[in-house]
Each structure stands twice: as structure tokens, then as C-alpha cells.
């Protein structure tokens, strides 16, 4: 299941959707809005996406991950719009027969998502300025 949403992510439902008695391991990753970045204080992040292409790229990532690991089920939800401190921007859940597969697949999916899925975020610093985030 791949989804872009403007409402809070229900990661509990996402995790339930990947559980299965065929799998011994589930890994869930949550990206959340962190207050401090290199000494500067964030008050909110604005996420903008290119929805059709983002969904296409996420489906490609799922296919790549499935070619590398024996994934049972996988779900990815990315939120768009204004997010406050602590809010969940992205949730990735994956189930596999064994734990190392699930950890590796989960880490691959979030690393690749950050590198190739057309979504952008803008910092809203506590001094009132805004700044588009450049990838590291």
C-alpha cells in the first residue's frame, strides 16, 4: 500500500496491514518533525509533493526492495502539507520471514525515498524565516 496524505498518518493501521503469520518480523520506520537542526529551532515543516510521480517512484522502490529481500507485505505513507513538531512525516512498514531482512528492507526504502521521491520540505525557523531544505 502506497499513499500520500494530507491528514495525520495512522501508522497503527499501516503496521497491522503488514502483519502476517507468514512473517516473523515487522519493522516500522517513522520520520518525525525534529525541533533542533544544527542548533536552529524549527516550529513547523511544509511538505510539497508531485503526487503522480511520487506514487510512481514509491511503487518502483517497492519493486526494487521486493527483488532484494523476501518481503511479505509493505506499506508506505508520506504526509504532505503543514506539519508541527513531533508530527509524523513518513511511515514505512515491512514484514519479512526473518528480522535482518525486515531491517535491511526498511532502511533501504527510507534511504531511497529520500533520494528519489519528488517531495520537498521547507523549514519554518523560530525566527520567522523559511528555507527550502537542501538534501545533504
Amino acid at each position: 500500500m502506497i499513499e500520500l496524505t494530507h491528514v495525520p498518518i495512522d501508522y497503527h493501521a499501516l503496521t497491522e496491514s503488514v502483519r502476517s503469520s507468514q512473517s516473523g518480523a515487522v519493522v516500522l520506520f517513522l520520520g518525525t518533525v525534529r525541533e533542533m537542526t544544527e542548533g536552529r529551532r524549527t516550529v513547523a515543516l511544509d511538505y510539497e509533493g508531485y503526487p503522480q510521480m511520487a506514487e510512481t517512484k514509491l511503487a518502483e522502490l517497492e519493486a526494487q526492495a521486493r527483488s532484494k529481500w523476501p518481503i511479505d507485505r509493505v506499506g508506505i505513507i508520506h504526509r504532505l502539507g503543514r506539519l508541527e513538531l513531533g508530527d509524523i512525516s513518513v511511515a514505512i512498514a515491512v514484514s519479512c520471514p526473518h528480522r535482518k531482512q525486515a531491517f535491511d528492507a526498511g532502511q533501504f526504502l527510507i534511504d531511497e525515498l529520500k533520494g528519489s521521491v519528488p517531495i520537498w520540505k521547507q523549514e519554518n525557523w523560530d525566527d520567522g524565516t523559511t528555507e527550502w531544505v537542501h538534501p545533504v
Partner: protein
Amino acid sequence: MLQIKLFAKAREVVGRSVAEIPWLDGQTVLQLKQVLAEKYPGLQPMISRLLVAVNNDYAADDAAIKTGDEVACFPPVSGG
């Protein structure tokens, strides 16, 4: 004419989410970037980092674009 969706800082500096420019089939991604930067000087500082997607996939500078393609232009992604 070719319609180009713009996102993030590219959308912001251009001031609109869709740009429209005259187009000859066969012109390339690199030519698109040059035409855009000429028409919208705000894009010039970021032109070397601009990405172009054609039909929902990243396109290299030498890829040809034809009218009717779905084209988008944006800075490096920073989601997650």
C-alpha cells in the same frame, strides 16, 4: 507550447505552478532548462541543480521532449 509543472523553490521563484513555453519536438532537457532560466531569471542561481522529469521519470540533459509529454521541473528532492 509545452507545459511544465514547477515544484518547491522552482515554483516559488517563478511565482506559478505551471509554466508554458514555445516548444519544438526533439528539443532536449538541457534546452528546456536554458529556456526556463532565460524566461524566469529567478531560476538561474539554481539551474545547475534543477531536475527535469518527463512522464513521471527523471530525464537526462540529452533526452528529447515532445509536446504532449508530462514535464516537470524542480530542485533536488528533500522528503522523508
